[in-house]
């Protein structure tokens, strides 16, 4: 197991290098650069030259890349071209916010999806099952920016209510933080809930058809034990896989919700970095998101061994 984890972590290295090269190349290929953004209409050839020198953009591309990667391996992701702020602490502070949003979203998704998915599987083709399936389909197919805007509008018109606009950290003020985060988390969660629900249902159906469930029932086990200990636990591997992937993609993928609710998360940071061609920020964010994605999926793989002890890694 330990060897497996080490191997997986080592496997991260080529992934991160590959991504960093790709981002570097893409940032060079897309039109527009950070100096134009900084100077805007005021740019003159002299000012431009000064800024290129200041940001190290006058050096050959290969040298620029190696300068960056050389520092990055020591944990120094450089400073933002635009704001001069060190990139890594900024990413961490944004990550905490995105992670909170993602985790809350997942919890809400589970609360909605798991019971409904199980009920839907147990009462296959009943009215409840059909309703649940339609609702799940709606959850997946309504884009979150649409539901978010509509919900904000509904709350504003109906209740004259708006979530607090000033972001407050979880540890600073728990109540206000929850008030800011719950609504966007609910919107993210409701989208995730749709797919988790569908996965739970189909996975449960598959397991319930297995002979050992018949054996458990024949043995006279109470229905609760049959469903939760035997059926659900065994059907949860694909669900956990799905949730792992969703958490990973939520890291950078909540940008629209973050914009609508003015939440200063990782997605916003990445997007602002891209529009301003702020290379150190984009590079840092994308690598960090990739890192989190791989780690979350590694944790999911490790979780498998607890769900199904037959799974071992060597």
């Amino acid at each position, binding site marked *: 197991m330990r060897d497996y984890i080490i191997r997986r972590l080592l496997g991260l290295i080529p992934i991160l290098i590959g991504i960093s090269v790709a981002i570097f190349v893409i940032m060079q290929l897309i039109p*527009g650069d950070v100096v134009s953004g900084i100077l805007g209409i*005021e740019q003159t050839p002299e000012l431009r030259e000064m800024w290129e020198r200041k940001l190290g953009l006058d050096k050959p591309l290969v040298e620029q890349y190696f300068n960056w990667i050389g520092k990055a391996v020591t944990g120094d992701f450089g400073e933002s071209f635009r*704001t001069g702020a060190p990139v890594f602490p900024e990413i961490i502070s944004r990550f905490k916010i995105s992670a909170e949003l993602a985790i809350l979203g997942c919890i809400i998704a589970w609360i909605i999806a798991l019971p409904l998915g199980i009920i839907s599987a147990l009462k296959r083709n009943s009215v409840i099952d059909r309703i649940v399936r339609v609702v799940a389909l709606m959850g997946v197919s309504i884009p979150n920016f649409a539901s978010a805007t509509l*919900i904000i*509008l509904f*709350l504003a018109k109906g209740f004259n209510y708006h979530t607090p606009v000033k972001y407050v950290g979880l540890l600073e003020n728990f109540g206000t933080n929850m008030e800011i985060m719950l609504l966007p988390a609910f919107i993210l969660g409701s989208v995730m809930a749709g797919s988790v629900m569908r996965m739970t249902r189909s996975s449960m159906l598959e397991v319930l058809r297995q002979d050992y469930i018949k054996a458990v029932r024949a043995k006279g086990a109470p229905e609760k034990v049959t469903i939760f200990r035997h059926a659900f636990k065994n059907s949860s591997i694909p669900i956990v896989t799905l949730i792992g992937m969703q958490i990973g993609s939520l890291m950078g993928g909540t940008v629209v919700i973050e914009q609508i609710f*003015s939440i200063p998360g990782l997605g916003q940071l990445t997007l602002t970095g891209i529009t301003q061609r702020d290379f150190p920020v984009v590079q840092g964010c994308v690598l960090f998101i990739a890192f989190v994605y791989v780690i979350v999926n590694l944790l999911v793989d490790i979780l498998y061994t607890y769900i199904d002890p037959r799974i071992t890694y060597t």
Partner: protein
Amino acid sequence: MKKLFALVLALAMVLTLVPAMAEGNVLRYGAETEPAGFDPHTISSHASIRVMNQVYNQLVDVNENLEVVPELATSWEISDDNLTYTFHLADNVYFHSGRKMTAEDVKYSYERILNPDLGALGNSASYAGGVDTIEVVDEATVKMTLKAVNVAFLSSQSSSYCSIVDKDVVEANEGSLLRADAGTGPYTLGEWVADNHVTVNAYDKYFNEAGKASFDAIEFYVMTDASSRLNALRTGAVDLIVADTAMLDLVGENDPIQVISYQTRDYVGLFMNCGREPFSNPLVRQAVNYALNREEINDFAYNGTAAISGFIPASMGHWAVDVNEKDYYTQNIEKAKALMAEAGYPNGFETVITVGLEDGIRDMGMVAQQQLAEIGIKAEVKNEENAQYIDDWKAHNFDIMICHNGAGSDPNRGVAFFFSSTGSANIQDYSNARVDELCVLGASTTDDAQREAYYKEAINIILDECATAIVSCPMAYFLASPALQGYAPSASNTSDFSGVTLNK
């Protein structure tokens, strides 16, 4: 059903929490973009300047009538040769660090601007770039000598790019003011949570009684989503928001929300690349001007609220030239077709109209495309993302580009910067020897009437040679809660909150 149930649940959870309303006398401002740091000398972002205007001062200010008025300098003298400016500083100015501002700080600030390693925006001919020497006469007097006469020098020193900064703070922050406060303004720079908000707090030792902070704090929120911004205003989460013409449709007749507007000194229109065929031919450029129906464009792009304008808009006062007298400001398709035939394009040609992300610009591109089709010009509208647009702007890489420019506070900016052959924003490679000559004369003549004559001649030449097809001078909009009183933005200053109150 599930969604509704969960929504009610979420609502119940949310509403049981006591809403954390702003405490004290705080103005909450819903801005459209994220500031990019707060170094007044190196940052050109509007969102940053709005905040920096609360934190920093300059030697002089320009009022609504484009007159130069005192700020940190209470008075000044200009030598007979118009090369030396002696500024007398107010004696009760304190930096936010508590230290008294002296002539040394003014010298230091200008040296910082002129330092080639900083890449300061003020280090160009439009601002302080022409300063040759700076001399401290005594604690409250500073003398600047220019390399060449520049009549627009004084008014251009009102730009945030020419702010006076605290030497000690700059040095303590290793030369970077992006996140530090080295100002003298009515507010101090407070908390900055990027992509969410920046707060400025009232400074009780502000030197000018009239400009004193009228709020305990101002909170600038980043709300990129326009509908979120409007909803936040409706529900009282913010007091004032930046708006655009499209948002005005969402404010009803009896809506308690206030619409606050002012005529900008900006202009929007078609810039034709004079360095490229076929626009190098003045006849083609004239044809384009005759082909446009400016009212129609205006109705579509700005709901008819913008004023039909040239590149020195009527809001520039006596400097402006009345474009309604110009024949080519009235659509005349026959004339346009005749000009096209005369230029050798009886069947028109194909071209590209490059537009940026701004709604007004994009809409203008679409209408212009249709109108130009009437005289055989088949234009493709190319939508560009901001960085790419600036790139093409900088590289003069376009056939027709729709631009939204500011005419500045002096025609030296509005004419020379955009249309003289050496102007750094002359993106269309327009060149006319007489215009160049007039720009030099205009910048070096102190007699106002004579200057006006020079610039008007230049403006008329540029208009008549149809270097551009400027359409209109747009309005700028804000939406405010009914409680907000006394906010009167103008083209000279949109972020002056002195005297503004909230009657909650």
